[in-house]
C-alpha cells in the first residue's frame, strides 16, 4: 500500500493524457495523409528536435514527464537538449557529440536487442 500511496496520480494522469494525445495526432496523420510509418517517425523526431531547440518542448516535459519524453518527439528533444548542453561545455565539437551522447542508451539498446531478436526469432505471418 505504501507503494500505491507514493505514486503521483495526478502526474500520471497528465502523462497518460499528453502521451495519448501525441499518439492521436500520429493516428490522424496515418489515416488522413497515408504517410508511411517511417515518415511519421521522422516527422516526430524532427519536430521534437526543433521544439527542443526553441526551448518550447521543455515546458511539455515539465508538465507531462514521460508523457512527453517517451513519444519520439521526446527522442528529438533529447537529441537537441544534449547538443545544446554539449555546446555550452565543449563549443563547436559539442554540437556534433552532444545529441548522440544524450540518446546513446536508446540507440544502442535498439541495435543490440534487434540483433539478439534476429538471432533467436523468426518472423511469422500475421495470423489474423
Amino acid at each position, binding site marked *: 500500500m505504501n507503494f500505491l500511496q507514493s505514486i503521483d496520480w495526478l502526474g500520471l494522469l497528465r502523462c497518460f493524457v499528453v502521451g495519448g494525445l501525441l499518439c492521436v495526432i500520429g493516428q490522424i496523420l*496515418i*489515416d488522413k495523409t*497515408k504517410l*508511411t*510509418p517511417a515518415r511519421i517517425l521522422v516527422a516526430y523526431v524532427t519536430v521534437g528536435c526543433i521544439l527542443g531547440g526553441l526551448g518550447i518542448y521543455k515546458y511539455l516535459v515539465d508538465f507531462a514527464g514521460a508523457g512527453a519524453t517517451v513519444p519520439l518527439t521526446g527522442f528529438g528533444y533529447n537529441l537537441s537538449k544534449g547538443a545544446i548542453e554539449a555546446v555550452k561545455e565543449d563549443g563547436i565539437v559539442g554540437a556534433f557529440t552532444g545529441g548522440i551522447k544524450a540518446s546513446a542508451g536508446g540507440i544502442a539498446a535498439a541495435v543490440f536487442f534487434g540483433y539478439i531478436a534476429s538471432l533467436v526469432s523468426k*518472423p*511469422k*505471418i*500475421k495470423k*489474423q
Partner: protein
Amino acid sequence: MQKIGKQTIKFDTPPTILETACIVGPKEANGPLAKFFDQCLDDEFWGESTWEKAESKIIKETVNTLISKSGISPAEIDYCFAGDLLNQCISSSFGLRDSNVPYFGIFGACSTFVEGLSLAAIFAEGFANNVLCATSSHFCSAEKQFRFPLELGNQRPPTAQWTVTGAGSAIVTKEGNGPFITYITPGKIVDMGIKDANSMGAAMAPAALDTLITHFKDTGRKPSYYDVIVTGDLGYIGKEILSDLAKQEGFDIKQNYDDCGVLIFDKEQQDTHSGGSGCACCGSVFSGYFFNQLRNKKIKNILLIATGALMNATSSQQGESIPGIAHAISIEL
C-alpha cells in the same frame, strides 16, 4: 488463328485446357474455396528456410501435381511459360530449373496467369502439342519486397489487399475435348494516375474496363453471353469500380460478374480488407474453382480477365503512378 477487331485473337481450332492444378497456403486453406484446391499447406515455410525457397517449392510441386494429374509424361510437354512477382521471377526459374522443359519466364504482375495461358494457347494452336503455364505468389515474400517487414506493427488501410500464397498452373493442348480457349484479348497498359500502392484495385480497374469493353466490341458478344465474367484481383473496391464504370459505358455486368480476390477469402472472418491479390489469386481460383465448375458443366463459359499492377518498390518510392494491365481470355465448353 486470326486477329479480329482492334486487338482480339480468335482461335480457329481452339486449344483445350487439359488439366489444372493449384497449391495454396494456410490462410487460403481457411477460406471459402479451400475444398477446390489440390493441396493446402499448414505453414508458410513448407519446411524451407526462407519464403523465397518456399514459393519456389510451391510452384515446383504445383507443376509436379499438374503433370501427374494430367497423365502425360514430362517429356511430352513442349514449352513452359511461368512468372511470379519476385524480382527477376526467381520463384518460377528456381522452382522449374530441374523440370527439363523449354522455359519462358514472363512478367505481367498479377495478370501473369492469363498472360501465360494466352501464350500457351497461341503456341498450342500453332505448332506445339502440350504447353504448360504456371504462376505463383507468396504473402511473406511479396510483403518483404513491396511493403514492410512482417513484424512491423503497422495498420493496413481498408483499401489494402492480401497477397495470396500459392500457385496455379495449367496445361494447354492442341487437341482435346475442352474446355476450349476460343478468344484472347490482350490488354493495353492503362494508367489513370493512382499512386497509392495500397489501392491496387482502383489502379487496375481502368485497365480491366478497357480490356472488357474491347473484348465485347471485337467479338460482338454481350456481357450476358457469359455465364461468368471474373477478374483477377481487383478486390472489393476495384470490383465495385469496374461494374460501376462498365455500366456507365453501357455494359451491365452486375449479374454475372465476380472477382477472384473477393471469392478466395472470407472478408469478415479473415480480415483481408479489400480481398486477395497476387499472381496466385487468379491462378489458384481459376485452376481450383472455375476449372472444376467448367469440367462439371456447372458453367458453360467464362471470361477470365486477369489484372496486374505494373509497378515495383522503386517506382512507387520515386512517386510514379501505377500502370495497370488486364488480359482477357474466353474459355468455353
